[in-house]
């Protein structure tokens, strides 16, 4: 399988059901290499569910998920992480008791290894590994401009900074695909601008493919290469931002035309 052929991630006809509620019905989405894909839709449209299926928290009762061409439908979250998929959460899921540095270092766990007895000794391989990864983490800290809060416990940070640290933690894993669940929710204009800049920089400098959920239409239109629109668990539009903006089904969904 060559690097460039086919989409990075393809979600094919998946359906997810919670009891009687159809959270997703036969949704197909492709994420192409190096693009920024925005997933939008009204509340309860199934956006976060889609992300949860991709990260392995839920399993679809029908449909398939392929990552780099291979079937990855029934993986658990740690397996998904090993494939190179990282994500952030809608309402920030940082490790509150740990320092910012430790939070981001945790993002590199999969890149670290060795026997736990070596860790117990510390001096030798464990220390060398620790320092090498510390250097990599420091580069991410510089990149996201959070040098000053390195040693602060994550739980004590203001909300905007927490979101940035969560992005740093996801980046530390050097993912192929980065899933962001409302990375700008609850931010002020200035913080949003910073976050937009970081997302664009991550995409252009590291070549990371990004799929994000966002409510701010201005942001979506500005930064995304392609937009997927969900409504009531179905995909109603898929295309470049300008095209989606004019789509009648999308306008109906947002303006609240009666569903029948």
């Amino acid at each position, binding site marked *: 399988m060559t690097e460039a052929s086919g989409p990075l991630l393809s979600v094919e006809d998946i359906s997810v059901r919670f009891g009687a509620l159809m959270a997703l019905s036969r949704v197909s989405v492709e994420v192409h290499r190096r693009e920024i894909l925005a997933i939008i839709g009204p509340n309860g449209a199934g956006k976060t569910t889609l992300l949860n299926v991709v*990260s392995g*928290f839920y399993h679809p009762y029908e449909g398939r998920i392929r990552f780099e061409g291979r079937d990855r439908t029934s993986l*658990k*979250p*740690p397996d*998904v*992480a*090993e494939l190179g998929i*990282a*994500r952030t*959460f809608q309402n920030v*899921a*940082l*490790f*509150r*008791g*740990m320092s910012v540095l*430790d939070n981001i*270092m*945790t*993002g590199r*766990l*999969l890149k*670290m290894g*060795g026997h*736990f007895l070596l*860790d*117990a*000794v*510390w001096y030798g391989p*464990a*220390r060398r*590994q*620790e*320092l090498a990864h*510390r*250097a990599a983490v*420091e580069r991410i800290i510089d990149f996201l401009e959070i040098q000053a809060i390195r040693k602060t416990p994550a739980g004590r940070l203001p909300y905007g900074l927490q979101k940035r640290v969560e992005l740093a*933690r996801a980046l530390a*894993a050097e993912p192929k695909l980065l899933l962001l669940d409302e990375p700008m929710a609850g931010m002020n204009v200035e913080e949003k601008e910073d976050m937009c800049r970081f997302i664009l920089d991550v995409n252009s400098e590291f070549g990371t493919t990004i799929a994000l959920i966002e409510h701010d239409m201005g942001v979506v239109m500005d930064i995304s290469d392609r937009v997927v629109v969900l409504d009531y668990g179905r995909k109603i539009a898929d295309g470049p931002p300008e095209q989606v903006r004019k789509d009648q089904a999308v306008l109906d969904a947002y303006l609240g035309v009666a569903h029948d």
Partner: protein
Amino acid sequence: MIYREAGQFKTTYAGDQAIFPILQDRVFVGLVALAAFVAVPLLANEYWLQAILIPFLIYALAAIGLNLLTGYAGLLSLGTGGFMAVGAYSAFKLATAFPWLNVILVFVLAGVCAAGVGLLFGIPSLRIKGFYLAVATLAAQFFLIWLFNKVGWFVNYAPSGTATAPPRTMLGVMVTGPQATAPVRYLVALGLVVLFALVAKNLVRGRIGRSWMAIRDRDIAAEIIGVRPLRTKLLAFAISSFYCGVAGAELLFLYLGSVETLAFDINLSFLILFMVIIGGLGSILGSFLGAAFIVLVPIFLTNVPNWIGLDMRTDTQKHLELMIFGGLIIFFLIVEPHGLARLWQITKEKLRLWPFPH
């Protein structure tokens, strides 16, 4: 003005990640170590060593063990006494079955046995959390104590039902048994607790500690980063039980000399848990502070009324002790959930600014 880190810049990540990054701390720790290893064995009397220092060191080791599990990995256990009993009885069996075995090696192997048992009782932790798990560890506590009580094999069919530490020498010096002097037993316990505290610190400041704390703080986010919950929790159970097992073996060999299962009943589990809460959840230093505190309170209650001329009955002391422990648990959970270790840190920060208020 004495305690300042001003001017001590870290130019390497290695320097920044040292256990004691500040010079003054290193000097202080060096002095404490010197006092503990040289001055105390020379100066302290039998009472101090036997009644205070030796139990303090052994409890501190057990508290570190429980703190790894509860403070770092966030898994509450009420079975500490049971795991310590596994250590004590397997050490007894090993030492009597293989008399030529070095006693330190006996302790370590006893720890390994306890780790195996801990692993077994840790399996439910994948599916259950919080107080459900606490109830599951109670099963370990009651079952293990019953087992050691009922099966004569564990005490070599001694009619009294007690396990007695056999006399063993190390480098020609008597370490266990009735002839071992208190300073020698103290030094063995001290050496072990220092060694294992360093090991614990190394574990928690690196990869493994981070995966434990990640599971503790936000298990869902930890999984998506690639932390495998079962493996991580089981490792915490195994290592924690190893520490408790070694501490249990020491309790028999270095402190009590002979034990019945009663020594490891549920009250011991609670006692160790109190040390962890009062000392500070998620702090190795806190385990030492908590152990010191719990050992000293009863001694304080025995002696203070005498000094001030008050006549206190022993059962009153016992009740007061319970009330003080209980009250302090609540107090610390409300006021300072990070315990004495956090208070120590605050004192240091104050000291750094002294004589200025801010």
